[in-house]
């Protein structure tokens, strides 16, 4: 989508622009309700899980496109000019020169977006997906005195998942860091 917005023709880039605007402008809960309850009114019946996956995916795609596009814009235009001057096609330039840099530069933003998606799965509770929150509910409905420990446990599970995934993405970021871009100020 980021490539389409930057390199696509007017139609493609406008389509991507509108998509980004719409899905970044609507709360996730509204997206879920639109897909699950709204679509069923016009005969498209999706089960709760499919609706949740679709909703999260559509919204996250809009945010991720922004992340990749900002990475793309940070690469000096001269590098594309140089690649084209060597005789690379537009596609070769994107694949060999731009994409490897875009992916590296996107890791921090992407890691951020990933944690948001992971945590927002809890909102799927609202349309009846059996996710972590609902599992917890099954337990505390039967044992009301367990409410606090159960929510604490849920919090810890989310926290551990998020932190460990951020750690591994941080590791990737270090591994594929571009040499010479480290901050070398010592004080």
């Amino acid at each position, binding site marked *: 989508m980021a490539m389409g917005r930057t390199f696509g023709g007017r139609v493609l880039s406008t389509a991507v622009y509108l998509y980004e605007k719409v899905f970044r402008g609507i709360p996730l809960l509204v997206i879920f309700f639109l897909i699950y309850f709204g679509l069923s009114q016009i005969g498209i019946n999706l089960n709760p899980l499919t609706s949740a996956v679709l909703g999260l995916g559509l919204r996250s795609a809009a945010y991720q496109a922004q992340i990749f596009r900002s990475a793309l814009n940070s690469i000096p235009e*001269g*590098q594309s000019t*140089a*690649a084209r*001057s*060597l*005789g690379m*096609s537009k596609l070769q330039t994107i694949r060999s020169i731009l994409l490897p840099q875009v992916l590296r530069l996107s890791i921090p933003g992407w890691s951020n977006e990933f944690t948001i998606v992971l945590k927002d799965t809890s909102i799927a509770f609202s349309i009846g997906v059996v996710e972590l929150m609902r599992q917890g509910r099954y337990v505390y409905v039967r044992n009301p005195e367990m409410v606090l420990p159960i929510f604490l446990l849920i919090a810890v599970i989310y926290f551990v998942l998020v932190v460990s995934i951020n750690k591994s993405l941080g590791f990737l970021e270090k591994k594929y860091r571009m*040499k*010479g871009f480290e901050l070398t100020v010592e004080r």
Partner: protein
Amino acid sequence: MHMLEVKNVHKRYGKTEVLKGVDFTMDKGETKVVIGPSGTGKSTLLRCINQLHPPEQGEVWLEGVKITDPKVDINKVRRKIGFVFQDFNLFTHLTALRNVSIGLEKVLKMDKGAAEKRAMDELKRVGLEPHANQYPAELSGGQQQRVGIARALAMDPTIILFDEPTSALDPELIGEVLEVMQSIAHEVTMLVVTHEMGFARNVADEIIFMEGGVIVESGPPKQMFYSPKHKRTGEFLGKIASLYGEE
């Protein structure tokens, strides 16, 4: 047949006409230097030749092929036209060696081993063999520009276009780049936009003086420096010479 023929090239950006009909030719092995005040279309001329910015009017012929023809596969043409940039424009995510070999691999479809061997030879040619595995950000400006020259040389181009190759460099780094350029002059055909009058006088076969989007005068360095036909040529060269400390 000349190797490169530029015929009546016109180029405008918006309302400003930058090139107002430029004609010249180049033969194999020649070095020509383009000089002139800023904003007279010197860089635009280079970009019109390799079609980064195609001219609106006029023709460019390379080895008997009319490359301004939209039907020509421009990517095939560009591999024969080297380009060295003012800001180097190296690929930041690749080592010096990979910067030179990537064109061989992706454009000329050489296999990786052969491409890197060839790239190493070119790095030797510009004296950067010890820095082959360093990234652009780890190299000095002069070294980066030499990688840029090696990258252009590696493609074995018919001609290399230099767009103010030393303008972004500290004075003490200019020398190493000019030395490399001097060492390859007459091995490859070079069209150089520069303010380095020493290079123009010692290396160029011909100096082209441009102003206001046209070629005012061109000729061998001796004639241009000592007996220019146009008053403006003399004035410009005099001003540059005093600025850059040439006698």
